[in-house]
């Protein structure tokens, strides 16, 4: 009877295990085996013939300067998103958390950019930044700031920051919603008690809001890092990775290896290294946050 029950239990989880194996474990295994091979993605695949050992990883780690430049650039965009984007999201969430008139309208407006298609956003902003007939330059001229006019996306000094800014504009809505949900879980009595004790707004923010919001900060930070490091569509629609390699990010490099150079094996090794980097960053962040939480 007990054996029968055990078999039944296994049968119940079998579909989930199979789906997980087919759609997660097998693809990961395949990516890993491909990363050890040199293969163009077209020819019939033969592991023994295509096997090159760890050569792809060696090249990636020690010879591919552009890959590390792309990681640094994605890191730069992530840093801006972590600070600027999340600061704006938190500020707006705090504003909406109060009982202000038309609060729901603001919520909808702030949540609009994330809903828009990334390609459309990229193309529209590309047009705004355009050096020939862009709106931004037109406004700058009209405001008497002609000396600031430039070709924003082709200038290596401004290209990556322009893309980062739009990424923040597009992404702050997510943070806003999560922060707002977090803020609404803080009991109002705590603020009232603090006010009775003579605390001002800054002290309430520092001593009530921040400590209680730490789990939310952790969640938003992890989502921001994972989302921003994998930024891709905006880059493709705004700059294509140029000028030169100035706006290349890891995913555009993976695509370049896979489609541009037909190096599927190398692209897979890039994917694995990139995954490991993201995993390590998230792990470090969780550890640090836990320590902060305990403190």
């Amino acid at each position, binding site marked *: 009877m007990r054996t029968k029950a055990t078999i039944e239990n296994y049968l119940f989880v079998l579909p989930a295990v199979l789906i997980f194996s087919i759609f997660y474990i097998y693809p990961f295994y395949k990516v890993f085996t491909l990363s050890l091979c040199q293969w163009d993605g077209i020819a*019939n695949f033969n592991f023994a013939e295509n096997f090159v050992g760890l050569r792809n990883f060696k090249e990636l780690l020690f010879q591919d300067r552009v890959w590390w430049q792309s990681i640094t650039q994605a890191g730069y965009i992530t840093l801006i998103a972590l600070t600027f984007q999340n600061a704006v999201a938190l500020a707006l969430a705090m504003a909406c958390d109060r009982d202000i008139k038309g609060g729901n309208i603001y919520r909808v407006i702030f949540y609009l950019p994330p809903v828009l298609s990334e390609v459309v956003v990229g193309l529209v902003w590309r047009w705004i930044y355009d050096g020939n007939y862009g709106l931004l330059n037109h406004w700058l001229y009209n405001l008497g700031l002609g000396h600031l006019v430039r*070709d924003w996306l082709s200038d290596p000094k401004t290209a990556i920051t322009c893309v980062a800014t739009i990424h923040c504009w597009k992404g702050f809505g997510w943070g806003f919603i999560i922060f707002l949900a977090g803020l609404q879980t803080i009991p109002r009595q705590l603020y009232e008690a603090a006010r009775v004790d003579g605390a001002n707004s800054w002290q309430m923010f520092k001593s009530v809001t921040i400590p209680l919001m730490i789990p939310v900060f952790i969640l938003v930070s992890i989502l921001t890092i994972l989302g921003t490091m994998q930024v891709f569509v905006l880059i493709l629609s705004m700059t294509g990775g140029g*000028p030169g*390699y100035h706006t290349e990010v890891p995913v555009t490099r993976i695509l370049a290896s896979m489609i541009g150079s037909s190096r599927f094996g190398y692209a897979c090794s890039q994917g694995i290294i990139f995954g490991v980097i993201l995993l390590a960053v998230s792990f470090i962040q969780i550890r640090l946050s836990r320590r902060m939480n305990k403190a």
Partner: protein
Amino acid sequence: MNYLYRKICLFFILSSFIVFLSVFLTSCTPQENAANTEKVTAWHWMSDREDAFQELARQYEAQTGIKINFELYAPSDAYTQKIRAAAQTKTLPDIFGLLAEKRDFASFINAGHIYNLTEDMDRDDGAWKDKLFKKALVVNEFREKNSFGVEAGIYGIPIDVMNIQMLYNKDLLASAGWDPEAPPQTWDEFLRLNRLLKEKGIQGLVSGWGEIWMIYCMATNYAFNIMGEEKVLDTIRGKVPYTDPGWIKVFDLFRQMRDEGVLATGIVTMVNKTAEQLFANNRAAFAFNGSWCVNVYSGMNPDLNYGVMLPPMVSNSHPMMIWGGAGSSFMVNKRSINIAKAVDFLKWLTDDEQQLFLLRETKNPPSNRYALEGIEDVLSQFVDDMDSTTHPNVWGVEEFPVVIETLNKGIQYIIIGEKTPEDLAQEVQKIKVRELKRWHERWSK
């Protein structure tokens, strides 16, 4: 009750699992087994030709009773991925277009995905072959003892031809005081004219150099002009370094264009569609673009007054060669059970009448050289220059993609002033040496 409930649950889970497994396995089955013998399926990425293809498919069905099912997948990047995925699962359609370099083209053939059309082309004393522009066929041809290990033959049918040249705006040239019927023939004249244009506040050259392959196209045009074909091909073979003065001279042309203010604002990240808009709207005097632009410009500005010219020569020692050949080609799936029907349709598609229809509807020069009746002036100039065309697919040797990328990106760096031609030459050569070493290691193994 509990027992019954568990049995029902178990039955439900097991049947869902079986349904899931059946769907999954069915979707993995190659399509060839299920192919409809009265239907030929063709995949392509040419969104501008979709209506014309559908009309031709209707006509063909009316004449033969065979349905041609044209399926459009755009943009081209997505199409490329779809074709590769279909090749892996052996679910390619009967006819498909291929957007690939010669190396990948060869890989498709070696993997048994593309049918050798040579016998069909040679039938009836080569009547079909003779109709088509030789330069267009050669792009789809593999010669004896080619370095890709492909059996010699013709593996694709061009449906149109193209080449990439310099276009000039006659009105803007006239407004700068230059005879619009005598565009600059030499590099010095080109720079002199650009100084005149600059004085009038007119932008010089636009091109989609954000899509970096167009940079390589222009760079190789000038490499052929400055060094000659053999030396360029020897560079690809690894016999001549990229640090050769000839290559530095090629890279220096981009520096000169930068310093003289020839290049339009934002050219390094400009996509070709933007470049086409600027040229069509009289915002730039020159464009470096392909023959497909005639259709694009007529849609954007039917009154645009422009002409076509070969890029201005830098040297007289070698001719100016431009990229050209087959515009778009169709291949036949070697695993298809409809090979004969697919070949018949392609033969029909490249017949005079259908080619004239495509010329009228899409304004692309036809691959059939007898279907040029009523061709527009500008398009006719493109066709006239087919003799000056070359293409990486006919060179017989192919540069490593990573070397091409370094060269293209490096030219972007020259344009934004972050590298000198000499820096770029060193960098490209370094990558070339690394790739050659890797290639030798692989082949010696």
